[in-house]
């Protein structure tokens, strides 16, 4: 679980706003993930440039929250999605 990793949405995985349900979703091969606001906010930050640590720093500043806790939450969220193969890593 390294915060140096640079998470990216691989080809075939994309964010979509579901107008019917009024919800953000992540569309992936044979999988539809309904996102809460936190998850959606994290995924919006993925640019293939910044590491989890940098994204954590950025979101901690915006929400005035402890950076360690935020980064740890992002790591956990990303690990779960990586296990599902709906997230890849730019440096991998």
């Amino acid at each position, binding site marked *: 679980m390294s915060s140096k990793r640079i998470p990216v949405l691989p080809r075939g995985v*994309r964010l979509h706003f579901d107008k*019917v349900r009024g919800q953000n979703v992540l569309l992936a*091969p*044979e999988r539809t993930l309904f996102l809460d606001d936190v998850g959606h906010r994290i995924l919006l930050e993925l640019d293939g440039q910044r590491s989890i640590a940098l994204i954590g720093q950025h979101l901690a500043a915006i929400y005035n929250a402890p950076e360690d806790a935020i980064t740890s939450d992002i790591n956990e969220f990303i690990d779960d999605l990586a296990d599902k*193969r709906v997230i890849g890593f730019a440096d991998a």
Partner: protein
Amino acid sequence: MRDAALAPPPIAMLAELTHRCPLACPYCSNPEELIAREKELDTETWINVFRQAAEMGVLQVHISGGEPASRRDLVELVKGARDAGLYVNLITSGVGLTDARLEELDKAGVDHIQLSVQGITAKTADWIGGYEGAFARKMAVADKIAEIGFPLTLNAVMHRHNLDDLPATIELAKRLGARRIEIACVQFQGWALKNRSMLQPTREQVDDAKRVVARAREEYRGTMVFDFVPPDYYADFPKACMGGWGSTGLNVTPDGRVLPCHAAETIPSLTFQSVKDASLADIWYNGVAFSAFRGTDWLPDLCQSCDRRDVDFGGCRCQAMAVTGDATAADPVCRKSPHRHLVDEVLEAEVVPMGNKAFDYRKFPANR
């Protein structure tokens, strides 16, 4: 009319563009009665169906068949589905997809490809698919898929004649760069019933397969996702078919009939509406075939009083129909079902060493 508590909007739609297919698999999921080419919905109607689907909340469309590449307008249909706002899965045997066509499909916006394999060698695969050269063609298609960069799911249909090759099948998926593998043991409905005694795996094979999948899930964590459908005749409890009847997905046949699941036509008491006669939303929310087994109120007492009622919803309706002759019975696979003995009797009678039996292949009539 709409009972919002029971019927959320569907998430996925299976679009069976055609029943035509070059393969002749003995477990073909096409219904008993095949729809001829002249009766297939035209391009414009399909695209209209995709728009309606997206408007009512469908997020993913699974473009399938038969072999969807048998439709000359496949690229146009994919583009129509993407333009409607849908995530497009293409489910294909690979036969009929040229490099040029794959490139066009890429431009049209296919999000993900599911490629079926019938075996891990040309000998086995071509025998099972009843089409010489299919395996070589599939491997060429897989290479082009990787070159273009489509995410790939390898769809391995498993049964007695290839379940022992499961470790090598997983290796093949890895070699082809698949992100997912579906290990789908044949479900006995429709044509597969005709070949059940040839296809039903042994209990030892099933136990082995479970161990292989459990190990592989660990080994490939983070690199490949496993979707494993075990053969349910050996299960203790039924699977939650479609996640509950009329709850998450719908199926449109080549001529436009709208079904709650692809095998629903095996239930003779149900009648189905067509996209030519009613809107997709009207059929989903108000159609009698969709309300027939939606929710849990219709379940027999056995299931009503069971703590798994909201886990498996009584199991598969088509299986209840096929084995017990009653679509409203509990799935006979269930240990608690009074019909379980029928399933055990089938296993005892059919899972025996084989002589020189042959497959009853599924051929689409030549005068297409």
